[in-house]
């Protein structure tokens, strides 16, 4: 196989350009569709920053960045019309057989269940309640320990696994909402 750059897509570039590479602590204040991109450069070079501050490079930027961030901080995801949040909890989710668990705020509404990343204001996944075929509590091994997870089967044969504390409360509320649909 020969490696290709198949017309770089924006998403692909964002993965690389925002989350990787050398970073300084003050980012240009830009916004993609209202989403603040500041704060995304997570790999801060702690030592490097101090150097930069020592040279007086960033003080003003740093202040401005924080002010801007406070002003634009987003505290909740955008809901659909007539959508109501029934339960909100912090937990993790995994798709199908993927071994990766991603942590985020998980919302159960009267329409859907979704994961939301606050820092980038992005819906990471969503499942419409009307597409749910089956909900079960299963016992799984995670990091060599048994634990309960909620397994949600959807009508496209996909599985969504959700884990958090209070699995039973989440399970009951989820069942109730699905029945209401």
């Amino acid at each position, binding site marked *: 196989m020969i490696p290709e750059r198949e017309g770089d897509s924006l998403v692909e570039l964002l993965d690389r350009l925002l989350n990787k590479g050398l970073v300084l602590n003050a980012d240009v204040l830009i916004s993609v569709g209202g989403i603040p991109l500041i704060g995304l450069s997570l790999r801060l070079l702690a030592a490097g920053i101090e150097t930069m501050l020592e*040279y007086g490079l960033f003080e003003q930027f740093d202040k401005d960045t924080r002010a801007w961030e406070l002003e634009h901080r987003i505290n909740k995801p955008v809901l659909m019309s007539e959508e109501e949040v029934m339960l909100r909890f912090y937990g993790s989710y995994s798709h199908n057989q993927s071994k990766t668990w991603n942590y985020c705020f998980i919302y159960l509404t009267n329409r859907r269940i979704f994961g939301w990343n606050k820092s980038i204001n992005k819906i990471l996944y969503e499942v419409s309640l009307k597409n749910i075929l089956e909900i079960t509590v299963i016992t799984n091994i995670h990091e060599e320990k048994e634990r309960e997870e909620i397994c949600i089967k959807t009508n496209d044969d996909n599985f969504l696994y959700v884990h958090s504390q209070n699995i039973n409360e989440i399970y009951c509320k989820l069942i109730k909402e699905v029945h209401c649909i």
Partner: protein
Amino acid sequence: MKEITQESCLYLYSIVNTAAEQNLGPIGINDNSVYTIVYRDIAAAVHFSETKPKAAKDEQQAKEWIFSHNYAIDKLTEKFNTILPFSFGCVAQGNDETIRSWMQKNYDSFKSELERLSDTAEYLVQIFYDPKVLAEKVLKENPDLQALNAKIDGGSKGKNYILKKQFDVRRDHAIMNELSKLGTEFGNAIYENTMEMIHEEKSFHVPEKYKGKKSVITLSCLVSNRSVENLGHVLDQINQREGFTVRFTGPWAPFSFVDLKRDFQT
């Protein structure tokens, strides 16, 4: 002559190997000219702005900036071969002298990182599988599953439902085991041809043509230029296995592998 003001700042693209001050033309964001600020035999590639950057006015502009940043990185890689790319949006307030003294202080880290990464590039390897093909494969290879499958349809409606459920759970577990076995096997074969490898926990963007397939593993690989062909060969073999598809992109500047945390001068 550049007007140096309190507001003036430099947008950073990369650290490169060069001892020559040069203007690389209007390859930067908003068509700004990118030029090098040299300290000894290394340089920072930057563009100068009289005023500090403002938020993008709309999504379109933000996108253009991202593409421009990437374009400049590609152009710089083309010209200087090995570069240390900056993440999007790194801006330093000050002038050429500020950057130069910062490079002076961190010269050793920059230089050794440039040497470590010379004659290498970053590649992204994504391996996908077709869930249907894999489900058939595990069923074919697993007599217990076959036996369970045969029992379904034999009993009452309620019993069938339970059997079907049991079958689904066991089949999914078998698929999970198979994937984890293959993931390790693929990972090892790829690893032999790389200098460094990062397992991307967060799944990368999946292009439209791979939709419907599921991801086995996503790896960012630092590959020496002489190993790229071998790696391509290994990936070919994986790509030919039934149900598997490989996506191989690159070369990219070593975004995932620049690491100055270790010995950054304070």
